[in-house]
């Protein structure tokens, strides 16, 4: 069996591990930037294991279904991504999970959960066009909708799609739940909505949601990695570089309102994408 055939299965198991380690490094680094000690590197794993050990006492009959579907969709999207599927399909499978997360939060009508759910919808409204346009930009630059075309491209794709990469940065900020666009459920403990969209997710269901978030992190970083995928070390450079920049932005900015988020994502992000793609088409 070739590596290409085994890769999606390896990714299915490795992605949550990688996601958890990234989350751990994130917390450690953020703490150090804030002159704190920070939790141990493996803390996210301890948290998930603790949550899994708890009883299942959901506050709504829909929460278990929604958390399972969110988890399965996120893991499936990572599987498809590493399996070389069409990137738009990968995105839409992930979007299924995002919808389930919102539906579960809506189904348990505590006010924090409800507002968090709506803010999550606004986040989806902000990042979805940007990711779709990124994929279309990749098609224009490499001639294919799948990762294979992007990997086969001889030059760094970021040279052809610099502005699209910047727009993807907005989507990355929103997806990673970082300031200034962490309005629905911040990555950290500072939150004016208790835990926003995750408020009513508890116990094993919150563990599933956390694992799904790790899968999604791996997915969005995978998309970022395609922009400089000429060698294994370039992938590391671009992924770690982007993540570090996100951590810095997170610590430098305050949370902004949804109007700012939509304005930045649509106003700036879509303009950047359109300009870049127009340049590619008319070149």
């Amino acid at each position: 069996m070739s590596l290409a055939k085994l890769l999606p299965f390896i990714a299915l198991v490795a992605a949550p591990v990688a996601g958890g380690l990234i989350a751990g490094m994130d917390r450690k680094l953020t703490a150090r930037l804030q002159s704190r000690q920070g939790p141990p590197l493996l803390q996210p794993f301890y948290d998930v294991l603790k949550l899994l050990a708890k009883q299942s006492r959901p506050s709504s009959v829909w929460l278990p279904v929604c958390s399972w579907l969110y988890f399965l969709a996120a893991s499936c999207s990572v599987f498809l991504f590493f399996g070389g599927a069409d990137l738009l399909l990968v995105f839409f499978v992930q979007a299924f999970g995002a919808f389930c997360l919102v539906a579960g939060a809506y189904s348990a009508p505590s006010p924090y959960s409800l507002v968090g759910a709506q803010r999550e919808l606004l986040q989806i409204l902000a990042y979805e066009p940007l990711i779709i346009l990124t994929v279309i930009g990749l098609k224009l630059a490499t001639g294919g909708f799948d990762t294979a075309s992007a990997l086969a491209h001889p030059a760094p794709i970021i040279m052809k799609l610099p502005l699209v990469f910047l727009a993807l940065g907005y989507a990355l900020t929103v997806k990673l739940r970082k300031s200034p666009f962490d309005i629905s459920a911040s990555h950290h403990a500072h939150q004016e909505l208790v835990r926003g969209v995750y408020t009513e997710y508890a116990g094993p269901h919150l563990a599933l949601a956390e694992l799904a978030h790790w899968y999604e992190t791996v997915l969005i970083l995978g998309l970022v990695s395609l922009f400089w995928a000429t060698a294994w070390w370039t992938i590391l450079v671009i992924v770690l570089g982007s993540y570090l920049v996100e951590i810095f932005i997170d610590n430098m900015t305050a949370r902004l309102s949804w109007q700012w988020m939509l304005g930045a994502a649509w106003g700036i992000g879509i303009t950047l994408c359109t300009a870049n793609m127009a340049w590619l088409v008319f070149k």
Partner: protein
Amino acid sequence: MPDLNLILLVLVGLPFAAGFLCLALPFKPVRVVLVFATCLALATASVLLIRQPFVDHPGDSLFGADLRTIIQVADFLLLGLILFYGLLRKSLLVLLTGLAQAGLLVYLEFFKLGHGHTHPAFAWNTISLIIVVIVCFVGSLICIYALPYMKEHSSHQKGLGQPRFFMVLILFLGAMNGLLLANDLLYFYFFFEATTLCSFLLIGHNNDEISRKNSTLALWMNSLGGLFLLGGITLLYEKTGVLDFQGLTSQGPLSGLPLLAVALFCLAGMVKAAQLPFQGWLLGAMVAPTPTSALLHSSTMVKAGVYLIFRLSPCFMTTLLGDTIAWAGALTFVLAGALAIGQSNGKKILAYSTVSNLGLIIACIGINTLSAQLAAGALIVFHAVSKGLLFLGVGAVEQNIHSRDVEDMRGLYGRMPFTALIMVLAAASMILPPFGMLLGKWTAMEAAVLNLPVAVMLALGSAITVFYWARWAGMLLSSETGAKPTREPQPLLMRSTLVMLVVAVLALAVATPILVRLFFNLPKFMTAISGPAVPPLGDFIFYALGGLVLLGLLLGLMALFGVRKKGLATLYYSGAQTTEPGEYMGPMNKPVKVLASNYYLEGLFGEKRLTLWANLAAICLLAFLVAGVFL
């Protein structure tokens, strides 16, 4: 194998006859029998039509009489009726558009038209067949649903009487079939205007002031569409002598004045499909009883406009007109979706969503590659079924809670679990994989790589549709009752039609790979330009994804077993919960009720704020569409 004559007679003629019988014999049992018999006949005939090897029919005689002359006379009768209603409602716009049409028709029929036309009056292609099946199946289900619905409705509001309502409803099915199967442009025009009249009569059913006002609006706007159509026919006949679809589309891409005629046809289609800036009539039409909204204003009549543009697609292939049509469709997709975000009236959300999805279909037709055409066909089918289901669900909800506002549907799962779940499924089918709407959007996005403005607008529009559907679906589930809700009572016919449409939605989702293959094998008279291939969704991946969804549902249900004994956990409020649901002990130890609402983002997407700019943008684009014919 019944012969083609009989099939066509059943599809087009029978509903007219059955409709008039409904009016002539105004008794409930007669109505029920007529509706069921017509629906059964239509469903059977449409299936038989697909299996016919022939795809055209001379269509010039009806029981020996000259059908062309009958249609000519009927055309004038129809215009006479429109003018009559224009006078009745004292509407200058109706009179102007009606008289203009009459003038053009007189000019065309008496001064210009030669005799001895040899083209077949009926000829159809794949898309015609697809929409005929939708009309005969989905339309039939809606008519059956209307029986108990109108019984309940007329106990609140007599309106203009059920016999008249059902006459027009059933007759309309015949007009739609005639429109879809027609090849002769004047036949098409007759059925087109017949649907306009049906729409007017049905919207005005309640006979209160708002219904009269909105039905008049629908009448003059659709009349304007008819005027565009007739103008295009006249121009085309003068310049080329062609009076049928086959003659028109066999010449390949056109230019000059014939292309202008095609542009006028497309404008007529856009008016019928309530595209921006003509969406006003569809929004106003929401005051009609729900079966009207479901049948005419989402599943079938508005598809007639889209069908017209689709039928003409060989004429504007590779021209600037094709690109402009795609831009206009995509613009409507985004802006109508944005307008839906700002709405809290359930039927208006559905109306804007319909306009938006029709724009998406038109955008696909404008792109005109094979995969874009497949996307358009798929979207037509899946949208008709899902949107029909949504409208029927809203109708059932409205009769139960007496409100159309989605805020009143919050937590509906606790009060009407069956209908609420159906609506959540239908809303999910509009935005999620593995349902066909999303697959259609996916195919459209990939096809739109050739047309950058369309790609950007599709990306935006897709996110916008997720917002307002997920908001509504979530709200329906947002129930506080921990106890298992009891199934609400519902008339048998309403429940069965809802169930059948749900089965249709699910069956279509499962059968998508088969349907795609069928689409490519049906007799086609559609050419396409080359472009990106259909996105690869192998059968294996498709069914694997479906299996995962089922797995998730199973695991979620299993997780609930422990909950039965222990009960649900309480929700997290700002304080300790009191014994009342939705209440907690607040400051000063006073109980505080939890109130929640939704984002409607009126500042950005409100109807009052956005409509003017949206219409202006659309008018500019359409002006360019017409002028661009000569570029």
